[in-house]
């Protein structure tokens, strides 16, 4: 029996502006299980990121409900790493611990070990400007992981990187998250990225976003070409 940690039920959301009301999400239903690698893919501006913001309590929703496992801890990563240029890599990674008053000697050691383990040992006392785009994104992931979240929300985390770096870092990040035994929800508009990283892909329609289709991916036996074509046709035929 799979362990359900998050359930989104009949979720709808409207944005209100002075001029008009925009219906962004329409009756979204998603179940997330422990160790899931869930991809949400959709046209740009379809409200993919809004789903993550709502899960992370950064935004309200209008209709429906979200049921979370008790004490579900959430980690969030955005398009860019948003490391603070005035802090060293170590201090950047410790910021969450400091905010939560958990910056103990033990946790500092743990963070250092993690940085070393994932190839950033040399850069512990460097500033973000000294790192490459991929290294910065990895540091941002460690900043999220040291808080020991149950579920990681990645909002187009590689879109600011060039193609080659993106390929490498997406594999990299996937492996790290697997090794740390976390659950992942990733929002992307890159079909290949979703196929490579996820075991389930949800395709959203144009606004107001509805769930158009769901694909289960068997990692050992996947026909990438076939999946790509299917998802592509889902995205383009409205």
């Amino acid at each position, binding site marked *: 029996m799979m362990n359900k940690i998050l359930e989104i039920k009949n979720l709808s959301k409207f944005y209100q502006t002075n001029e008009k009301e925009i219906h962004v999400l329409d009756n979204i239903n998603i179940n997330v299980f422990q160790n899931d690698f869930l991809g949400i893919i959709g046209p740009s501006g379809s409200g993919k990121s809004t789903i993550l913001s709502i899960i992370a309590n950064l935004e309200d929703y209008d209709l429906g409900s979200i049921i979370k496992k008790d004490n579900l801890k959430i980690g969030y990563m955005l398009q*860019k790493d948003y490391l603070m240029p*005035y802090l060293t890599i170590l201090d950047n990674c410790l*910021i969450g611990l*400091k905010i939560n008053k958990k910056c103990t000697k033990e946790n500092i050691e743990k963070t250092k070990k993690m940085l070393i383990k994932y190839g950033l040992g040399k850069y512990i006392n460097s500033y973000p400007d000294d790192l490459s785009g991929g290294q910065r994104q990895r540091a941002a992931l460690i900043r999220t992981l040291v808080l020991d979240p149950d579920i990681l929300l990645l909002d187009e985390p590689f879109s600011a990187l060039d193609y080659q770096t993106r390929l490498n870092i997406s594999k990299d990040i996937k492996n790290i998250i697997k090794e740390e035994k976390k659950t992942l929800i990733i929002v992307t508009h890159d079909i290949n990225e979703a196929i490579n990283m996820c075991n389930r892909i949800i395709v959203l329609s144009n606004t107001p976003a509805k769930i158009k289709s769901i694909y289960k991916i068997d990692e050992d036996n996947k026909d990438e070409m076939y999946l790509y074509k299917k998802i592509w046709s889902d995205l383009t035929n409205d």
Partner: protein
Amino acid sequence: MISNERKKYLKKRKKEKILILFFQILILFLFIIIWELLSRFKIIDTFLLSSPSNILKTIIKLYKSNNLFSHIFKTLDEIIISFVLGNIIGFIISSILWFNKKLSLILDPYLTIINSLPKVAFGPLIIILVGANTNSIIIMSLLISSIVSILNMNTFFKNTDKNIIKIIKTMGGNKYDIFFRVVVPSNLNYILDSFKVNISMCFVGVIMGEFLVSKEGIGYLINYGSQIFNMNLVLTGIILLVLLTIILYLIINLIIKKIKRY
């Protein structure tokens, strides 16, 4: 090891720097020499426009009568006090406005109006309220400098990257975490740079204040000189002001360089 190419490049840069400095100083010298010559050959009226040698004489005379440094330090005192206070007031008020979005919206038009008013108009009112003393000079200067620093810092704080704030929020950070861990440190460089503008605002305020009330200071020298039609004194005051501006600007630049971390 430094490569030959690097050495060449550094040498070239150094040469350029020296050349620029040379021309900067040359302009100053030419200006002084031409001014002196024009006055010597009576092409300009020294009674109205003085001359470098007359200004030097006036400075020496002031120094001999033990007045030179008392005037300079009086003005310097007032500038430093109003600079420090102005920035503290600016920081406190703009912090309050950042924590209170509604209050910020309510006060917005008032800040804009106060900023665009010519503050010298408040001069007589301040003198009547505070008295004809140093305090009213400092208040005058604060009126000018703190409003600029409030508006500047308010803009910096408001423009803090929303996404970094988002990250801090998802980590469970509250408003204080956001303010002290992101808003202030990420704007520190801008705040430091705004000090350069602020110091000149303090100059304007202090000299204006000294025109109105003081019995000492560079502003007083200029004002007194004009009243007794002693243009040597007026121009001496202006030259002292220029020197003081340069020195303070350099000191602030040095402090900023020391504090800036990245």
